[in-house]
């Protein structure tokens, strides 16, 4: 992205991801996977790595990645959000890879990133404890003497993860920022149980740890923590995924409205419907601008990232939920049926809205950080 436009290479990347997902991420297949215990299609997930080469988009080549930037990663995510492609990509290639990239030592990166970037391993990050209305990363549990006992919830793709990266405080510094820790996946103290999500295209688990031996990612003795940065990176990734889904909903509304006839004419000729769609387009374009700008800020190491990340997530939340609610309204009764596809995106919108903070939380946070906006 050259400031506000994608480069030709980036547009080609988007094209090829879209083509791949059109073939491998059909709604028909997604519906089958909603009843599958793993919840995703192994061959088409592997194809992301072997065929499409987007497994470690933003992971440096020395660690087995493609060595591109965060903007490219976000392009992939936007397309996945658009097609609702169910896979542990967000958990593994984004969240876990980011944790290692941000916190890990050189050795840990060399050790952990190649299997993530090649798709050989699925990893995820165990962040949430209890639901919390005001603080996204309200992590309170501590690692004591390199051992952890506690319960983590809403762990995305925990059920298929080979490696769970734990977020917990260091007992030596319980008031400090949370740190990242590695456990052995075959540790008998780890038990993973599925939680039931309204969005069965993204699975979540509760993971309990009982005297599990852990090893720190990076230097936990240092005061410095990359936790906030990790959250900002995750917000930007999720926001980009979300605007892709919102765009799909708008297109499906327009398509349906152009074909559905009432009172002797297509409902798309009725202003109540047209104006809703026009307003939606505006909201979605604004949210895209927020998401793209924040992705660019990561690529540029822009100090205004914390405020941009909150702007991106708040705007994406509001646009996606508006699109989801309007889409059902515009489809009428059929929109409320299981057979119609709209509810699949509605559910993704809802689960994404509350993952990593509602708009209310992010509006509050953006004002906390508004000084950065005035500078940036």
């Amino acid at each position: 992205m050259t400031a506000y436009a994608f480069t030709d290479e980036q547009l080609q990347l988007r094209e090829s991801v879209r083509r791949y997902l059109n073939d491998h991420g059909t709604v028909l297949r997604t519906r089958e996977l909603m009843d599958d215990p793993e919840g995703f299609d192994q061959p088409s997930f592997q194809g992301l790595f072997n065929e499409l080469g987007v497994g470690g988009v933003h992971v440096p080549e020395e660690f087995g990645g493609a060595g591109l930037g965060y903007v490219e990663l976000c392009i992939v995510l936007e397309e996945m959000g658009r097609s609702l492609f169910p896979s542990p990509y967000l958990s593994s290639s984004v969240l876990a890879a980011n944790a290692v990239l941000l916190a890990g030592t050189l050795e840990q990166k060399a050790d952990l990133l190649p299997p993530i970037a090649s798709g050989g391993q699925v990893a995820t990050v165990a962040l949430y404890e209890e639901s919390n209305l005001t603080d996204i990363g309200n992590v309170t549990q501590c690692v004591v003497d390199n051992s952890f006992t506690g319960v983590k919830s809403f762990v995305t793709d925990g059920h298929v993860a080979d490696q769970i990266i734990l977020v917990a405080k260091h007992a030596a510094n319980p008031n400090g920022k949370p740190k990242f820790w590695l456990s052995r996946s075959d540790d008998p103290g780890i038990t993973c149980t599925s939680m039931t999500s309204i969005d069965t295209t993204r699975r979540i688990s509760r993971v309990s740890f009982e005297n599990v031996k852990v090893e720190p990612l990076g230097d936990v003795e240092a005061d410095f923590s990359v936790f906030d940065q990790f959250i900002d990176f995750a917000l930007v990734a999720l926001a980009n995924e979300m605007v892709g889904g919102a765009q799909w909903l708008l297109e499906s509304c327009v398509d349906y409205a152009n074909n559905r006839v009432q009172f002797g004419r297509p409902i798309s000729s009725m202003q109540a419907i047209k104006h809703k769609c026009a307003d939606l387009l505006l909201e979605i374009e604004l949210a895209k601008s927020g998401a793209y700008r924040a992705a660019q800020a990561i690529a540029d190491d822009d100090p205004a990232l914390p405020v941009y990340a909150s702007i991106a997530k708040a705007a994406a939340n509001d646009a996606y939920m508006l699109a989801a609610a309007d889409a059902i309204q515009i489809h009428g009764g059929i929109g409320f049926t299981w057979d119609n596809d709209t509810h699949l995106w509605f559910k993704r919108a809802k689960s994404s809205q509350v993952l990593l903070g509602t708009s209310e939380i992010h509006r509050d946070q953006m004002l906390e950080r508004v000084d950065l906006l005035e500078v940036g």
Partner: protein
Amino acid sequence: MEWSETAVRNELRSFLESSWDPNADLLDWRNKLIDAGWGMPSWPERWYGRNMPLSLQSVVADEFARVGAVSVARTGIRLLAAETLLAHGNDAQRERYLRKILTGEEIWCQLFSEPGSGSDLAGSTTRAELVGDNWVINGQKVWTTSAHHADFGLLLARHDWDVPKHQGLSYFILDFHQPGVDVHPLKQMNGHASFNQVFFNDAKVPRSDQVGEDGDGWQIAMTTLMHERRNAGNIFVETRRRGVFNGTIYEQEAEENKILLEPYTWYPQRAGRVDLVLPRARTTGAISDSAARQEIAKLLIMARCAEWTALRARAAQQQGQPQGPEGSLGKLAGSNIARQAAKVHTLMTGIDAMTSGEDSPESGIIAEILLSVPAISIAGGTDEIQRNIISERVLGMQKEPRTDTGPFKDVRKN
């Protein structure tokens, strides 16, 4: 020729170093700028420009601001008139009008809306009849901003009543300095009177001042409106000079602005004055009220994302995509922002928001915001019309059934 930022900067810098004089005569200076192509560098070389890509406009503005140089006149709708003539006028018209648009010697207004036709501009009933070598104009326009200062107007009028409404319109340059034109100011709800009623009684337009051919009026008016929407909220151009500069040219410019800017003093308020929000949130304490914080943040997020959206649109244009109907998105965003800003100013001001005048908050500016914001979603095409444009031309949705497609004389009117 290929332009690079450094090339522009170097060339303009050396031009300003050798030519800029803060004690020059305003008119002389602007003519010099026009001749050098530094007044409107994005215009064609043939017409006072340098064929420079719009993307480098900000570099030019930056160099002017650095030394405090005065630019060509840009206020009001003069640039809409110029862009329309560049697109559809003939060389004689460009020769006659473009230079004095840029020197500021002549003031323009837009004679489109009528009492019976606002959103439905093509329903104009102002009559144009060709008598000898003159078009004779009869009828009335309304909401005409700056008509009380105008030398010329961009006039949309009907020459043919027997064809469907869009086909019977023509486009003219109307000279205000003639007995057949009467201007009556209209007072607005915010107390200002920046728009007017304009009456034509056998007003004359020489044939040479018709733009395009008979029946081209609608298409040409669309060009004017497209430029207006693109610049929505930006008609009032502020000079961003850094520091204080002295010289007689600034005094001349200030004198000129007393007239040119008079109709637009309230325009920043109509856009909601988002710039005042954070400072006032801090002084009023609203910044620590949780309900207020939500509304303030909604506004700032909207405004920031709209700014980035405009930059994306501009970047797309620079990559060669044509200016399209997405200007309507920006206009709609501007309305949403202004409305949210009015809401935020109200909640931060409390019961004081019922007061106006010098003693009221921000010396009356808050009151002026609250009473001016309602104009932004009407002027230049209402929000509803923008939504129609967006849904039909960007999203490809169907048009409403029409009842006005027959010969105009048979169409129901006000």
